[in-house]
């Protein structure tokens, strides 16, 4: 409900400020048993109903006017809150049970905003309730009492010379949301702290930032927040802009537009927070010609999306999505065709689809995924097993193994063809610096020894090798080089079935050595490898021991998982 009793403060008193929108994202957490695997989310009939259970409440804060004339007035911050509140309160669209809009100067003081947040906390929240907090106004940076640079929302009474003492730090805003009993929380910030656009920095901070590398800046709120869903009108360091032609903050304009139904990407009848954000993000990006990139941080995504508008009428088309910063700029291809850029969500036709994540000419990940109506799959979860844990590679191949010197091959045991299987764990030793490989190879042959005297003596021979190696792997694009020490247990047998000699001879030992492998990944999961090994061999022959080299070369195909 839009509260009519909230009087509007004169725009003459407004100083350009931060616009912050906090929306509540209610998300069912991933089932524990699915941790580390792809998140499969399916909207069944019962889930559809439960997704719409609970009440929707919103606190919208638009701060256009400031007491301290040092802050520039914002023309559309209050209007942004009003316009958004109107849509949320509309029973046909948002259907929110209550919408509290704070826009007047006395309502947007630090004390008043904190009181509004406390009032929000005081409500009897249920987990299935949805809460949206939206803030539009100036943002700023200042040193707190500990001397650390923090983000602040500039309230109407914030003094330019004392931001830390009179502004509202974003951490307080975030903590206030965390205390709510609802699990569906969305925080939307139409602010920035870059010193441009809807941001104004004190001179000393601006001077400090001019001489400070970006990595020392405080983290963007959406990167540090523990709220369920944090949507931001601009990326860290970018300006959030108002636009006269739109008569709104640009991001807010398209966010409101999405709630009209335009953002219903999967055609399920409702506009979720992520759908609305994706719509606003893509349109803001296009409208600003790439100068403003709204971002989002989603910490929990469950079966029931945070619905901001409409109601679920049917299972939507399958969707895949990612708001991970590391996937930003990647293109999602579906069945070989471009389907959209990340971050964001993409609707995918139902059925088994080949999905690819590409950037430039490189494929980060590809797989064939079965998608059903109503499903929402997080792309990050597909990649997580490889990113989080040690990556493993199983290889299958063949090659040749034998003594390195010709004399031993002629007089003791000929080289033999081998077939082998190997298993490698990447980065499991020494804080991820060393890989571990285990391999087993077996082979046999029927050749001749060449003795003098003795001539050519037919011999059948078999070998079994079990090896362990450790070492680092260096990669250059798709090419990888691994090398390291190795120990191999070896069983060698030669067998003579001759007229005067029917005898099996064998030798079992363990030999130290070295290995080197060159690999080429022709896809994220498939690779080929050439692996060479050399072992220091100590072999008793005719009652005397020989110290010789033993080695081999294996060519293998591998699968990474």
């Amino acid at each position, binding site marked *: 409900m839009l509260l009519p009793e909230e009087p509007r403060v004169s725009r003459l008193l407004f100083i350009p400020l931060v616009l912050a929108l906090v929306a509540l994202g209610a998300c069912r957490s991933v089932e524990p048993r699915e941790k580390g695997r792809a998140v499969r989310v399916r909207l069944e009939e019962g889930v559809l109903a439960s997704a719409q259970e609970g009440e929707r409440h919103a606190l919208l804060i638009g701060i256009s006017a400031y007491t301290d004339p040092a802050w520039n007035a914002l023309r559309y911050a209050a209007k942004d809150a009003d316009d958004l509140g109107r849509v949320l309160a509309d029973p046909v669209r948002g259907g929110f049970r209550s919408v509290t809009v704070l826009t007047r100067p006395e309502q947007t003081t630090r004390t008043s905003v904190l009181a509004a947040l406390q009032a929000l906390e005081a409500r009897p929240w249920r987990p299935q309730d949805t809460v949206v907090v939206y803030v539009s106004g100036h943002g700023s940076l200042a040193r707190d009492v500990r001397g650390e640079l923090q983000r602040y929302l500039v309230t109407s009474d914030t003094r330019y010379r004392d931001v830390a003492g009179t502004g509202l730090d974003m951490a307080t805003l975030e903590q206030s949301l965390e205390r709510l009993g609802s699990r569906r929380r969305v925080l939307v910030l139409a602010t920035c702290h870059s010193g441009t656009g809807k941001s104004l920095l004190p001179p000393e901070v601006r001077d400090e930032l001019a001489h400070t590398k970006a990595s020392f800046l405080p983290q963007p709120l959406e990167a540090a927040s523990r709220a369920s869903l944090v949507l931001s009108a601009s990326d860290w360091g970018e300006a959030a802009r108002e636009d006269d032609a739109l008569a709104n903050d640009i991001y807010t304009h398209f966010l409101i537009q999405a709630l009209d139904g335009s953002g219903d990407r999967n055609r399920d009848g409702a506009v979720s927070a992520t759908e609305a954000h994706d719509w606003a993000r893509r349109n803001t990006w296009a409208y600003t010609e790439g100068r403003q990139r709204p971002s989002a941080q989603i910490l929990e995504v469950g079966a029931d999306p945070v619905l901001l508008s409409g109601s679920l009428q049917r299972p939507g088309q399958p969707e895949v999505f990612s708001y991970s910063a590391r996937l930003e700029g990647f293109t999602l291809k579906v069945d070989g065709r471009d389907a959209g850029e990340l971050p964001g969500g993409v609707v995918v036709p139902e059925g088994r689809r080949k999905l690819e994540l590409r950037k430039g000419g490189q494929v980060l990940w590809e797989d064939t995924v079965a998608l059903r109506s109503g499903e929402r799959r997080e792309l990050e979860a597909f990649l997580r097993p490889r990113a989080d844990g040690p990556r493993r590679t199983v290889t299958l191949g063949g090659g040749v193994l034998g003594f390195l010197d010709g004399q031993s091959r002629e007089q003791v045991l000929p080289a033999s063809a081998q077939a082998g299987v190997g298993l490698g764990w990447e980065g499991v030793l020494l804080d991820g610096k060393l890989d571990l490989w285990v391999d087993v190879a077996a082979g046999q042959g029927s050749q001749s020894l060449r*003795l*003098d*005297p*003795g*001539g050519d003596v037919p011999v059948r021979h078999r070998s079994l090798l079990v090896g362990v190696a450790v070492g680092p792997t260096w990669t250059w694009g798709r090419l990888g080089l691994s090398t390291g020490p190795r120990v191999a247990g070896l069983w060698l047998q030669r067998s003579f079935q001759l*007229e005067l000699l029917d005898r099996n001879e064998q030798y*079992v*030992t363990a030999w130290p050595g070295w290995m080197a492998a060159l690999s080429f990944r022709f896809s994220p999961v498939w690779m080929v490898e050439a692996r060479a090994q050399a072992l220091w061999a100590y072999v008793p*022959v005719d009652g005397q021991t020989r110290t010789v080299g033993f080695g081999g070369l294996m060519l293998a195909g591998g699968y990474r998982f």
Partner: protein
Amino acid sequence: MRARTCGGALVLALVGCGGFDNGDLRTGVVRGRVLGAESGVARVNVMGDSELRATVGSDGRFELAGVPARALELFVVASRTQAARTTVMAQGARVTDVGDIQGKPGAFLTVRVRDEQGAIPPDVEVELRGTGEDRAKVDTSSGEVRLGPLPAGCYALEVKADDLEDVETEVCVREGEERVQPITLPADDDGGGDDDGGSDDHGGRDGG
């Protein structure tokens, strides 16, 4: 701890079980049959190795064991008048059958021994090296000894006598040939007869 680990790896590397032995692969057996073999006379041995010899059975069959697995030549005496030489590639740990060996008319070599004064030296022994023939004593009255039957080919003839220098010379004979090989034994300045430093110059000067 690290030292213990390294030590363990070293022990693993040095300790093995089993091994390989090529000894039995270096010799084999050669067998065959001598056609027209005369019992009690026929014999076979490996040229160049007098120890490797075999008697021939009444059916002419023979078997040589422990023969080095390499290319070699057999010296075959089939009867009092026939002999043969045949090559064979012996195989390690296997039996190599040379098949039937047909004796051919053998050559006979008469070695006539004299000292530098033309006298018949006493206690002279003659040997065709590598044929397995026993050393033959020169008849003190005639100063000669007759060797054979010999398969056609060349042989190393060694003549030894007390107080004279030994003489070694190569003698080649043709099939069925009767050959006289005169040998002159020079005086031994060192007074020994065990000197193998004899010279071919002393042999064959009267041959023909």
